[in-house]
């Protein structure tokens, strides 16, 4: 009896976490560069409640009577499928088409990675401009350096970026010329292993493997950079709504199982009047 109570409770807990995930996905449906998270479940251990079991005609069966003890959340993984590219007015908005990530330098001087290409030119020291995210974290180039410009020599709205990330500025004849550096793009062997930080930023872990530089690693399939576009979240609202219905009903049914167990215990309790 207590088993069924705890099994149902484990079911309710698991569904609660599932709803938390769905709610977070839906809350971020308009977050640039957001990747949807999926919850998966596994059954808990099994217990023998009777060692000798027989089939209908009395033959002993090879396996005893087993009862499972509920469910747990096995994994919550991000799905790194491409989101839709949305045109914007900003010249410093970039969308990655492919498997790459932008590298940014965090406040703790560590390197982090993001798919959110909503950048801006920020005023740095010594009259320079630095390309940063909207939170002010500097974006790194293919060599891992900050992307800086002397402030008074360039009009930032005339800067263009090619599909491979090279930053260009037009010469006297209005032909874009490379400025000698490119926005860095990095890939991971196992992006699902990345650690989620805040603001759609990911940190490297042992599970993800080290970052692979697209510019230097020839084995990688290079991603394309689109200037003037932002990558929308890849949350599928219809999928999330269906998941929400399933989650809510599963939650409800587990609560019914708790009620039923409770009633049975009450009846057992009432045996002795």
């Amino acid at each position, binding site marked *: 009896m207590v*088993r069924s109570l705890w099994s149902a409770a484990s079911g309710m807990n*698991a569904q609660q976490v599932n709803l938390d995930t769905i709610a977070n996905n839906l809350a971020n449906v308009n977050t640039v560069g957001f990747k949807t998270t999926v919850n998966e479940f596994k059954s808990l251990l*099994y217990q023998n409640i009777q060692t000798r*079991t027989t089939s209908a005609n009395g033959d002993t069966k090879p396996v005893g*009577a087993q*009862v499972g003890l509920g469910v747990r959340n096995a994994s919550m993984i991000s799905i790194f499928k491409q989101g839709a590219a949305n045109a914007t007015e900003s010249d410093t908005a970039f969308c990655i088409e492919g498997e790459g990530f932008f590298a940014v330098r965090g406040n703790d001087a560590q390197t982090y990675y993001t798919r959110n290409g909503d950048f801006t030119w920020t005023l740095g020291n010594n009259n320079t401009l630095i390309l940063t995210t909207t939170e002010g974290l500097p974006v790194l180039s293919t060599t891992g350096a900050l992307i800086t410009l002397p402030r008074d020599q360039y009009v930032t709205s005339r800067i263009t970026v090619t599909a491979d990330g090279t930053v260009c500025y037009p010469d006297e004849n209005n032909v874009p010329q490379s400025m000698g550096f490119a926005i860095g793009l990095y890939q991971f062997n196992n992006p699902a292993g990345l650690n989620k930080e805040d603001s759609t930023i990911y940190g490297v872990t042992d599970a*993800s*493997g080290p970052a692979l530089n697209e510019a230097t690693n020839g084995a990688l399939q290079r991603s394309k950079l689109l200037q003037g576009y932002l990558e929308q979240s890849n949350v599928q609202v219809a999928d999330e709504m269906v998941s929400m219905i399933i989650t809510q009903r599963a939650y409800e049914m587990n609560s*019914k199982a708790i009620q039923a167990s409770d009633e049975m215990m009450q009846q057992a309790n009432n*045996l002795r009047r």
Partner: protein
Amino acid sequence: MLKGLYTAYTGLRHEQHRMDIMTNNLANSTTVGFKKEGSTSQSFDEILAYRLKDTTDVGNLAKRIGYNTPGVKIGETYTYYDQGPFQATNNTYDLALGGNGFFTIEFTNKAGETTTMYTRAGDFTLTKDGYLVTKDGDYVLGTNGRIRLDTLADATVGKDGSIMQNGVTVAQLRLTDFEDYDYLEHYGETYFVPVEGYTTKAADAEVYSGYLETANVSVVTEMVNMISITRAYESNQKIMQAYDETLEQAANQTGRL
């Protein structure tokens, strides 16, 4: 009289066990690769009933007055290995099996012992080294042992379980089926372990990449079961109360003037 009291007790205990099994089905109604379970009810072995202190039968023996079954127990728990519905995920390494068969998993427990286990849950992923693993990190086995892929190249999984990268078959999933599913024990984690006496055979399952096989739990059936279990429990409880009342009368009313 007391015999019936214990019979009702076995009834209560039995309904509890059925409730435990049913609740586990509900708790796992959204677990990938879960197969629903049920149990059969079986009466205890019949025993002969005799008259007490009776010598009327041949040879001054007590007279038989028929058979008596002193209660109910679980006959067996069984698993429905029916096909579960597919859920589209579009992830290459989400694999669903259509038909009979299991994925073969190399499972290492906390003590470091490695065993081969079988599962229908095909929600796999790649490690940074390119090994195909379950979400818990257990290796998925191919026909040549662990499956190692190139993480940087796209992969496609064919219906026969072959994994292609760059147009070349790089690995083949090892699908296993069993002659008799009675020889499979639940480990938990949606894994099955075969027990002594099992025989394997070739699996006829097809592999569908980009899908997951969800639990084959039918919630309507489970809710109906729940009603029948709670009501059966209630009736057994009523029987016990009736016995209690009769006993009370026997103890307190009989012989009173």
